[in-house]
Each structure stands twice: as structure tokens, then as C-alpha cells.
């Protein structure tokens, strides 16, 4: 057998070995939810940076971080409720 033909066989056989079933829609949605949490966190951080005076943020860093987490969870929950099929 020539090398090109063998490469073709190897590629075909690897394709067979590599076949997997499609992901469930739940798995994809769960992963997107994780991303949405990060997106929401960034949106809220950007909003904080725009609306809060710098010295106020520096005075209360722990409170701001806690508020961000709470707001992020709230917004993620709102997104989940608004998602089709939720």
C-alpha cells in the first residue's frame, strides 16, 4: 500500500474513532449561563466605574465587591428568567 493511500485510511479510521454524539441543549445552556455571569460582572463593573466617584470606590472596596456579586447574581437570574424555554 502506498503512503498516500495509508494516510487516507488512517484519516478515515481516525474519523470513525472520533465520532461523538451531539451535546445536549441543557449542557450548552448551562455553559452559556456561566459565561453570562462573567459578562454581567463585567457590565456591572463598567457601570460602577462610570457612575461612582473614584474616591468613594476606594473608600469601600469590600462593600463594592459584595454588591457586584449580588447584582451579578440578580442580573443572571433575570437573564435566566428571560431566556426562551427557561
Amino acid at each position, binding site marked *: 500500500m502506498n503512503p498516500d493511500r*495509508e494516510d487516507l485510511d488512517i484519516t478515515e479510521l481516525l474519523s470513525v474513532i472520533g*465520532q*461523538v454524539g451531539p451535546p445536549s441543549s441543557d*449542557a*450548552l445552556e448551562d455553559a452559556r449561563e*456561566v*459565561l453570562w455571569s*462573567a459578562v454581567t460582572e463585567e457590565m456591572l463593573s463598567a457601570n460602577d466605574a462610570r457612575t461612582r466617584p473614584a474616591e468613594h470606590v476606594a473608600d469601600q472596596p469590600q462593600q463594592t465587591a459584595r454588591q457586584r456579586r449580588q447584582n451579578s447574581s440578580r442580573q443572571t437570574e433575570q437573564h435566566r428568567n428571560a431566556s426562551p424555554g427557561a
Partner: protein
Amino acid sequence: MTDGKLIARSLCGEPEAFVEIVERHEVAIHGYLSRRAGHQAADDLLGEVWVRAFGARRSYDSGYDDARPWLYGIARNVLRAHWTTNQPIGLTTPEETLDPWDEITDRLDSAVRARALISAVRKLPSAERDVLLLVAWEQMTPAEAAVALGIAPGTARSRLHRARAALRHMLAEADANEAEVRK
């Protein structure tokens, strides 16, 4: 709109634009994770890939329209972290993947050869195996695999060449052994 433009938008006050990147590539990336680590692990790791990609999007080279190779690179790093705490490599078994309704002798021959191929792939150096599987399983070009792996295109091509040559050699040996057993 290209992936590159969406990522640029996500960096300019519209982080939610990144979600469209995910929607475009989630099935492919899940498939990659699933082939390398199993379906359950893929379900568990997919969200981690998206968060890492979102956090690293400033490093994306906007010269690339297609984010897929970049995402594969991130998914590979997530897999590596996963493997450090779990089994070293996942390859599905031939019993799970071969069509059970094929003609019986063909199936047996394929199963033997598939088993030999899995064994041969396992023996490859991981750097060569990574290139080979990105090309064979993810339909990437060697240049795209190079982006995913953070190596030069020429390096990817030479690793692919070495991997194929090694597989040819190992399969020829396996065939010879099989023929000897059947005598």
C-alpha cells in the same frame, strides 16, 4: 459579522457581543472536549472554556476572522488542567464508535485496526498527537492547528508528518503481527 469584529465589539462596551461567538462555536468546542475527555467531562468543562476565553479576549489577534483555532487553544489548556487531576488522555473505544450493523467480517477487521490505531495514537508524543487530532478530528488545517497550539505553521506541518509516519509504521507492525497470529 466576523468573529474578530464581534470580539472587538465585546471589548468596546458591549461584552455581551461575546455570547454570539459562543453560540457559533459551542457545538464544535463541545465535540472537541468530548472526543478528548468524554461527554460528561465536556459538559463540565465547556463553561470554563467560555469564561477563560472571555477573560482572555484582549489577547485575541484581530487579524484572524475565525475565532475557532483560538478557542481550541483555550479548550486545550482547560483539558490540560483537567488531565492533571484526572486521567491523562481520553480516546473513545472502538466498541462505542463502530457501526454495529456493518457486515460482520468488515466490522471485526475494522475493530482490530481501530484498536491498533488507538494504541498507536496513545504512543505518539503529545505534541504530535495534538496536531494530528486537531487536523483529523476537528477538520483544521495545519496552519489553524498551529494557531490553536501556539506554534509556527511549519512546526505543525512537520509534527503532522512525523505523526502520520509513526502511525503508518505502527499500523504496519500491528498488521504484520495480526497476520502472524492468523497463520
